[in-house]
C-alpha cells in the first residue's frame, strides 16, 4: 500500500518535472501531455501498440524483480532477451511445423536461451563468488557479438546484411483476430504470455516453498544456510528463472512486435527492466502497471513530437525523473510521515522499525 503511494507520487512528480521542462523549451505542458496521452491511447489501434510496447518491459521488469527478491542484481536482461529472441527466430526460420506447435517450440527456445544466459552468471556466483553484476554485463556483450555473428552467417536477410530474414506472418506471435480487434495494431500474443508470467511469478513468490526459500536467501543467506536451505542451488535457480523471463521478453520483442532480429543493437528494454522493477517495488503486479506506464510514455512520444515542437527525447527524460524520485523514495517516505504527523498529530509511523532490532 505504502509502496504504491510512493510510486504514484514519484510518477506525479516526474510528470510535473516533465511539464516544467516543456515550459522551459517554450511549449505548453497541457498541450504536450494531451498529445502524449492521445498518441498512446487515442484510438483502439494506438492502445494496442501501447500494450505491445509495454509487453517486453513486463518481462524484463519481472526478470529483474524476481532476481532482486533473491538478492541478485540481474543487469543482463538485454543479453538474455537477445539470446531468447535469437533462439526463437532460429526455430521459426529453421523448422517447418504447424503453427501451434511452432509457437510452443519458439517460446520454449526463448525460455531456454534466456535461461542459459543467466544460468552461467548464476553458476559463477554460486561456485566462485563472481559478482553477478559484472558477469551479466559481460554476458550482454557475448550475446551481442553472438547475434552479430550468427545472424549474417545463418539467417541473413534478403536485402539487408544487418538483420535476419523476415519471419512469415504465421510464424510470429501476431494473430489475425487480435490484429483485427485492435484495428491493425502490432499487438500480439506476447501480452497474454506477459500477464500469465505476472500471475505465475506472483504465485511463486508468495505462495510456494520455492518462493519462501528464494526470499530467505535474498534477505539473509547466512540464516538460509543455517536453516538447511541450499543457498547456491537457490541462487542458480533464481537466475535461471529470471533469465527465462527475460528470454521470453526477447521472444515477444523479436517475433511479436517485430518480425526480424537486428545485429549491433542491445535492446534498451533490458535496462528499462531495472527501472520498471524499481518503480513497481519488485512486486509482480507493480511491475505490470509500471510497464504499462512506460509503454504509454514511449508510444505517445512520437505523436507528441509530430503535433508540436517537443523533442521525443522528453519521454525518456520524464521516465528518468520518475526513476530518480522512485529511487530516492526515502525522501518521499519522510515527507509522508511529516504530513501525517501534522494532520493527525499522533503516531510516529516510522516506528521503531530498523532501530529496535539492534538493541
Amino acid at each position: 500500500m505504502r509502496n504504491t503511494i510512493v510510486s504514484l507520487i514519484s510518477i506525479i512528480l516526474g510528470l510535473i518535472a516533465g511539464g516544467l521542462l516543456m515550459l522551459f523549451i517554450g511549449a505548453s505542458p497541457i498541450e504536450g501531455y494531451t498529445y502524449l496521452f492521445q498518441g498512446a491511447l487515442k484510438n483502439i489501434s494506438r492502445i494496442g501498440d501501447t500494450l505491445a510496447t509495454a509487453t517486453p518491459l513486463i518481462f524484463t521488469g519481472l526478470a529483474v524483480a524476481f532476481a532482486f527478491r533473491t538478492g541478485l542484481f540481474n543487469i543482463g536482461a538485454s543479453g538474455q532477451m537477445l539470446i531468447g529472441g535469437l533462439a526463437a527466430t532460429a526455430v521459426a526460420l529453421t523448422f517447418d511445423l504447424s503453427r501451434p506447435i511452432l509457437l510452443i517450440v519458439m517460446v520454449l527456445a526463448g525460455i531456454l536461451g534466456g535461461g542459459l544466459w543467466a544460468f552461467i552468471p548464476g553458476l559463477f556466483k554460486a561456485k566462485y563468488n563472481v559478482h553477478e553484476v559484472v558477469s551479466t554485463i559481460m554476458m550482454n556483450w557475448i550475446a551481442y557479438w553472438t547475434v552479430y555473428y550468427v545472424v549474417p552467417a545463418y539467417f541473413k536477410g534478403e536485402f539487408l546484411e544487418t538483420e535476419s530474414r523476415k519471419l512469415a506472418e504465421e510464424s510470429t506471435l501476431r494473430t489475425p483476430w487480435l490484429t483485427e480487434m485492435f484495428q491493425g495494431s502490432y499487438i500480439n500474443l506476447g501480452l497474454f504470455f506477459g500477464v500469465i508470467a505476472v500471475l505465475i511469478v506472483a504465485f511463486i513468490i508468495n505462495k510456494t516453498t520455492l518462493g519462501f526459500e528464494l526470499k530467505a536467501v535474498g534477505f539473509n543467506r547466512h540464516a538460509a544456510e543455517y536453516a538447511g536451505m541450499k543457498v547456491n542451488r537457490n541462487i542458480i535457480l533464481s537466475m535461471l528463472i529470471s533469465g527465462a523471463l527475460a528470454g521470453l521478453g526477447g521472444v515477444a520483442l523479436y517475433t511479436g512486435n517485430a518480425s526480424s532480429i537486428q545485429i549491433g543493437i542491445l535492446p534498451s528494454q533490458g535496462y528499462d527492466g531495472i527501472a520498471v522493477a524499481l518503480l513497481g517495488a519488485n512486486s509482480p503486479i507493480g511491475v505490470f502497471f509500471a510497464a504499462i506506464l512506460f509503454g504509454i510514455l514511449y508510444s505517445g512520444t512520437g505523436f507528441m513530437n509530430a503535433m508540436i515542437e517537443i523533442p521525443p527525447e522528453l519521454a525518456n527524460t520524464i521516465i528518468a525523473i520518475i526513476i530518480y524520485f522512485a529511487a530516492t523514495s526515502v525522501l518521499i517516505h519522510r515527507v509522508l510521515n511529516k504530513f501525517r504527523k501534522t494532520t493527525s498529530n499522533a503516531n510516529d509511523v516510522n516506528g521503531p522499525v530498523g532501530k529496535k532490532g539492534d538493541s
Partner: protein
Amino acid sequence: MSYVVEMLDIRKEFPGIVANDNITLTLKKGEIHALLGENGAGKSTLMGVLFGMYQPEKGIVKIREKEVKITSPNIANQLGIGMVHQHFKLVENFTVTENIILGSEPLKGLVLDIDKAAKRIAELSKHYGLNVDPHAKIEDISVGMQQRVEIMKMLYREAEVLIFDEPTAVLTPHEIDELMKIMRNLINEGKSIIIITHKLKEIKAVADRCTVIRRGKGIGTVTVKETSEAQMAEMMVGRQVNFKVDKKASTPGEVVLQIDSLSVKNNRKVMGLKNFSVEVKRGEIVGIAGVEGNGQSEIVEAITGLRKVESGKILLKGKEITNIPIRQRIESGIGHIPEDRHRRGLVLDYTLENNMVLEVYNKPPFAKAGLLNGAAIKKYAKSILEKFDVRSGEGGASIARTLSGGNQQKAIIGREMELDPDLLIAVQPTRGLDVGSIEYIHKRLIEHRDKGKAVLLVSLELDEVLQLSDRIAIVNNGELIGTVIASETNENEVGLMMAGVSKERSV
C-alpha cells in the same frame, strides 16, 4: 540537589505498543544512574527520546533545569548529551583519530589538521586513563578498545551526559572491569552517566541510583547501596526471581552425540580445532567452557554442518553425519540456537511467522506439494510465541527486525525447542536477556534434558556453564584441556583450565 537531566512523564507510542507510559527519570550531576528493565521494557526507547531519535507524545525534558525540545541527535550533542551505542558506529579502515573527528574535522586552512586532533585525543586519553592509541586502525584493535573510541568520541565533543547502551554485552570479563574503572574516572571528572543494562551485578558494582521500568511503565527509582539484587530483580520482573538453578542429578543414558578426534579449520584457514573428542549422552547437559575464540564456534559449526571437517568423525545416535547436508542433520534431530541471532538465527526482514517455520516450511502441515499453508504457519507460530512469551507490536505478523534483541532470542529458542531435537546445541542462549528470561530459558534447557534429550551448551558466561552443565569440557587454543564433573569442580579450577593449565585428574 541539581539535576543535569530531568525526563518527566514521558509517553511514547508506537503502532500497537505504548513503549513508554509516563516514565520519569532524573539524573544528578556526577552520578552513575542505571536504567534497568526487561527486554523490550522500553529502555532503549526512553534513551532514544533523550538522544533525539524519537519525539515523545507527552512529557517534558529538562537539561540543566531548562526545558528543551530534542528533535535530533545533533541537538542532543549540542546540549552535551552523548551516546555509546551497543553496536559501534565506527569506520573499520579509518584510524582512531579519523573516526573521532568524523563530522567535526579540524581544518588548517583548507586541509585537515589531523595532528592537532591526534594530540588532543592523546591528551584526553591520558587524562581519563583510556589508553587509546590515536593512530591505530579500528580493524586492528579489540572490541574493548573500540568501545573506548566511542567513549572518546563523546569526550572529544565535550559531552557532559554520557549514555551507555548495554555496554558490557560485547565485552570479556576483564574488559568489563576496565570499563567500570573508566566510568568511575569519568564521574570523578564531573561527567554524569546513564547506563542501560539488565545485569544486576554491574549495577551493584558501579551505579549510584537505579530506575526500573517494566512493560513501558516506570516502577520506581532506588538507591543502589540500600537495595539488594533480589529486590531489584523483583521490581524489574514483577515477581520473585530464583537465581539458583534447581535441578536434579542427571541420569545419563545412551550416547547421542559422539565427536571423535575432530579437526576443523577456522576463518583464518588454520586449524581452529585439533583432535577434539567429546560425548553427549541422553539426559545430560555438557557445557563447553573456554575464552572466546578458542574453538567453540568451530565445534558447533562442524556439528551443524556450517563448516567443513578436515579430519575426524561426528556421530549422531550412532550414525555418522560428518559430511551430510545441513537439512538432513536438522531432520535427524539436531536443534541449534546460534551464537549470532542477526546473522544466522533470523531472517530479519521476514515476519515472525515465517521465521518460526524457517526449518520446517516445506513439511506438512505447513506445505503440501510445494504450496505454503498460511493458516497452519500462523497457528504454529502463534503457539510458540505465546509459550515463550515473545512480545511484539503485531504478534506473528511483526517483522522480526522490529523486535527487541531479547524477544528475538526468545523466538529463536522457542523455534528450536519446538522441534524437540534429540541434540540441542545452545550457544550463548541467554546472551542479552534479562534475569526473568534467563531463569525461564535455563528451566527449559533442564526440562529438555530431563525429557531424555542431550544438550550441548556453549557459553562464555562461566556462571552459566557451571550452573547448568552436568559435565564440562574445557577448550583452550582449539584443544580439549580436560573434562570435569560440574558438581565436583569450581570456578577456580575451570578458570585455570580455560587458561590452558591442564589437570591430571580427568574424567
